[in-house]
């Protein structure tokens, strides 16, 4: 029985030693027995050798002085290109380590955030502030009367009254859970909102 021939692709690769080990073993065994495939392998090997021998040959028009001249021209152009590149490129900064740069940048961002947000962040119990002597024993009372809102304690009083001409029925007074009292009314110039609270 005559074994079927090896595909050309495998023979072409076999001739150049480019087949994987096990495939190469199989092809080798076949080629040893098959004259046709062996001839083809020899042809591919010859072709490969021929190409390798011509690798260094310059084109016919570039032999001798012509090549020297072209090589000089290319060398000069390469120098010119590099010089031009050096002129237009930005000055190279000192070599920095990327990891260190990222770490420092991250640290800077964190410190900035802390500096900006510090007043709003609660880092622990705030120190108690002693009330001013004149305010000691102060028990404030917020009240709204007619068109005014105010705060009062004992003989001291602060009130904000709506301007003359504002109907007291149109004044909206509000009291909220935060201990604020407010009034809202409409003037010619717009809406006025007054909020009074004790601290």
């Amino acid at each position, binding site marked *: 029985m005559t074994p079927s021939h090896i595909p050309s692709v495998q023979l072409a690769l076999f001739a150049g030693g480019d087949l994987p080990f096990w495939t190469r073993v199989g092809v080798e065994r076949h080629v040893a027995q098959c004259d046709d495939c062996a001839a083809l392998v020899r042809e591919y090997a010859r072709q490969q050798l021929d190409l390798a021998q011509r690798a260094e040959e310059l084109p016919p028009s570039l032999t001798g002085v012509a090549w020297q001249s072209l090589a000089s*021209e*290319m060398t000069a152009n390469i120098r010119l290109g590099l010089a031009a590149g050096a002129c237009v490129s930005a000055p190279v900064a000192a070599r920095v380590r990327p990891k260190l740069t990222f770490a420092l940048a991250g640290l800077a961002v964190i410190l900035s955030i802390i500096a900006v947000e510090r007043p709003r962040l609660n880092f622990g119990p705030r120190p108690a502030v002693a009330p001013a002597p004149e305010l000691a024993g102060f028990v404030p009372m917020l009240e709204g009367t007619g068109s005014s809102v105010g705060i009062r304690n004992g003989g001291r009083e602060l009130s904000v009254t709506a301007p003359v001409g504002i109907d007291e029925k149109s004044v909206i007074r509000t009291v909220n859970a935060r201990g604020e009292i407010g009034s809202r009314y409409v003037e010619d110039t717009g809406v006025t909102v007054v909020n009074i609270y004790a601290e």
Partner: protein
Amino acid sequence: MIASEWVPLAMGDLLDSPQTAQDAQNRFVSDNLRRIFLQIYRMVGNIDDAQDLTQETFIKALSRAGQIKEEHKAAHWLSRIATNTALDFLRRHGRVSFCEMELAPERHSESPEEILLRSEQQTYLQKGLETLSPRERAAIVLRDMEDLPAEEVARQLSCSKATVRSHIANARIKFRRYAVRAKR
């Protein structure tokens, strides 16, 4: 083989003092110019384009000399830049135009018959390469003419070993068919 003559580049020199760097650059160019020019010429098929692309390759390589860490791989690295530059060019232009600047051989040691024979052989070689696709051409130039291992060819063409084997096999088969036709 060209590959055996590859000159390892002392890349450290390129980053040294200006004078040392300049000398290293000049040496690097003169040692590799012919090899890179021929590699590109085989791929693009004409001298004018090969000249431009060779210059471009060296400018790219020398501008990025700091990128290479292993000096003994400098020649392969340069070759890879040349391959990519040539393939990019072929992709942009979509064709190869095989032509010579002029047929004015100047090697005085050769007889007219020898010059004619060599010229015919070169034309035969270039026309054979013309029958291949750009990637097949690159593969056979790097594998069979520059004697690079298939793994390195795969790296240079940014494809798998299986794909590069396919390119190499197709290129050899097509080139053989061309050779058979040319002999008739």
